């Protein structure tokens, strides 16, 4: 039996994740230190873990509503209102998902017809393009540039719009670049969305990790709520990656369509995770702010470290990534990362793992202690001196 021949051509044609390839390389190495991790170094705050254990003791082990626990949706609704000034009805406009990742998938599947185009900032998170392709859409990568601090440039965006353009994917604060966009900077993007009648799927999983700026939601821009599918979750802000709990906020029509897919494929997000998320929203904001201010300190530390050793590094104002340029070394991103790993035992991720516009850059996570960052910067500096 030729098992490989049974695989769907769509899946066969999907390129494997560039991260995966690099992960395998790193996993084989010894004594490395890594700035390659895309999740908080903090363990989920204890009160959240404790609340989930208590829910198990009380016997909360059943399915919840397809939409997720109503109490949780109520807290999400309040949280979005107080944090971003945007209001969603907990019964018809909110869905609890298995991470924001599920949100990307079901948003695309609910909205795309074969051949519809989705505009995706490049570089950005690795799952957008595959989710678009698996939903039968066409991914159109919109380059972002270091001279724009990797913000989405309205002119470049508009030049790539065609009659088939249906969705604009937004991902700010951005993984891997750390770029953010202020309400002012999003305004021309909103105008383009309106002019070309685009749906905006906005992945705001890193919104709380905005430094020196108030977190913005695209849905809070005037007139944008109706055309926005807001994706977020608890992974980054509350250090809850492994719990896999996220949510979608969208107009009732979009939401009902996504709930259809969700109910037949997922049924509901795990109840223990939902209980943990409930505790996070009720009592977790103080601890969240403490983590955010710690990331901010590390952010300044790593950016200043890169600049001191002569690497160009624009100032990232969100998420927990710095995205320095390594063009001055004459190496491309992949070569640089492979040699850095071999020679200096330091793992960072090539910018190209997140799209072609990441070429010439490397993603360095600063979700590490200052002492670990110091050691990593030391290795980087020594490595640069050998080039």
């Amino acid at each position, binding site marked *: 039996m030729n098992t490989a021949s049974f695989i769907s051509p769509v899946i066969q044609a999907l390129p494997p994740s560039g*991260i995966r390839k690099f*992960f395998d390389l790193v996993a084989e190495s010894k004594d490395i230190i890594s700035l390659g*991790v895309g*999740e908080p*170094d903090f363990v989920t705050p204890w009160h959240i873990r404790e609340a989930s254990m208590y829910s198990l003791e009380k016997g909360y082990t059943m399915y919840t509503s397809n939409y997720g626990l109503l109490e949780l949706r109520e807290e999400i609704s309040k949280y979005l209102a107080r944090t971003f000034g945007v209001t969603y009805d907990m019964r018809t406009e909110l869905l609890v998902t298995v991470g924001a990742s599920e949100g990307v998938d079901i948003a695309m599947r609910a909205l795309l017809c074969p051949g519809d185009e989705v505009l995706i900032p490049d570089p950005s998170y690795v799952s957008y393009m595959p989710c678009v392709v698996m939903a039968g859409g066409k991914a159109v990568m919109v380059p972002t540039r270091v001279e724009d601090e990797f913000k989405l440039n309205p002119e470049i965006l508009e030049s790539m719009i065609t009659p088939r353009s249906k969705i604009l994917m937004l991902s700010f604060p951005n*993984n891997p670049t750390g770029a953010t966009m202020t309400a002012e900077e999003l305004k021309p993007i909103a105008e383009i969305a309106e002019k070309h009648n685009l749906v905006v799927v906005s992945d705001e999983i890193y919104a709380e990790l905005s430094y020196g700026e108030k977190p913005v939601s695209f849905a809070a821009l005037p007139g944008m709520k109706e055309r926005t599918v807001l994706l977020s979750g608890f992974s980054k802000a509350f250090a809850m990656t492994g719990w896999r709990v996220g949510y979608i906020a969208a107009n009732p029509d979009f939401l009902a369509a996504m709930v259809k897919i969700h109910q037949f494929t997922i049924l509901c997000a795990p109840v223990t995770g939902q209980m943990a998320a409930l505790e996070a929203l009720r009592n977790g904001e103080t601890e969240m702010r403490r983590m955010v201010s710690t990331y901010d300190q590390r952010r*300044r*530390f790593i950016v200043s*470290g890169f600049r001191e050793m002569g690497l160009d590094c624009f100032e990232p104002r969100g998420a927990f990534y710095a995205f320095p340029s390594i063009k001055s070394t004459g190496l491309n991103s992949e070569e640089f990362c492979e040699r850095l790993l071999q020679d200096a035992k330091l793992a960072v991720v090539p910018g190209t793992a997140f799209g072609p516009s990441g070429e010439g850059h490397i993603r360095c996570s600063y979700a590490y202690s200052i002492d670990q960052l*110091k050691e990593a910067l030391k290795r980087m500096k020594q490595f640069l001196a050998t080039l």
Partner: protein
Amino acid sequence: MTEPTRRSILAILAENNRLTPEDIATMLGLSTEEVVNFIHDMEEQRIILKYNTLINWEKAGEEMVEALIDVRVQPQREVGFDTVAERIYRFPEVQNVYLMSGGYDLSVLIQGKSMKDVAFFVAEKLATIDYVQSTATHFVLKKYKQDAVIFEDQEEDRRLVVSP
């Protein structure tokens, strides 16, 4: 320097006092000089009292016994508990002294080489101080957590080395 920034410097030092003023300046977007001056100021005002290292002495193989003593005191006119507290905290064996609400007045942490050592100190030195009415000695058997640090079972980094 804003109040939150001042508090951040103190919090950073309380967490890790091996960071240099240069490090702290970088972390908070300040000049090194500002941080140096602020720390100097804090030391002078005795807001920063000491740069400590927390050591697990038991694991280091050091023979050491600690006891918490509940001390009941007859307060003195005009000076309250302070004079008695001072008579107690001047002894080098005494590590901590707190004035407490509730069933007794002073909580005293004593360090000694052996149980006998500590018991002798309580009987001979502490209980005999004027206005000390009674003492109750509780020996520490095991330390699980001190100064917000858990002694065993430190949470290690369980993340994958590379993830998207």
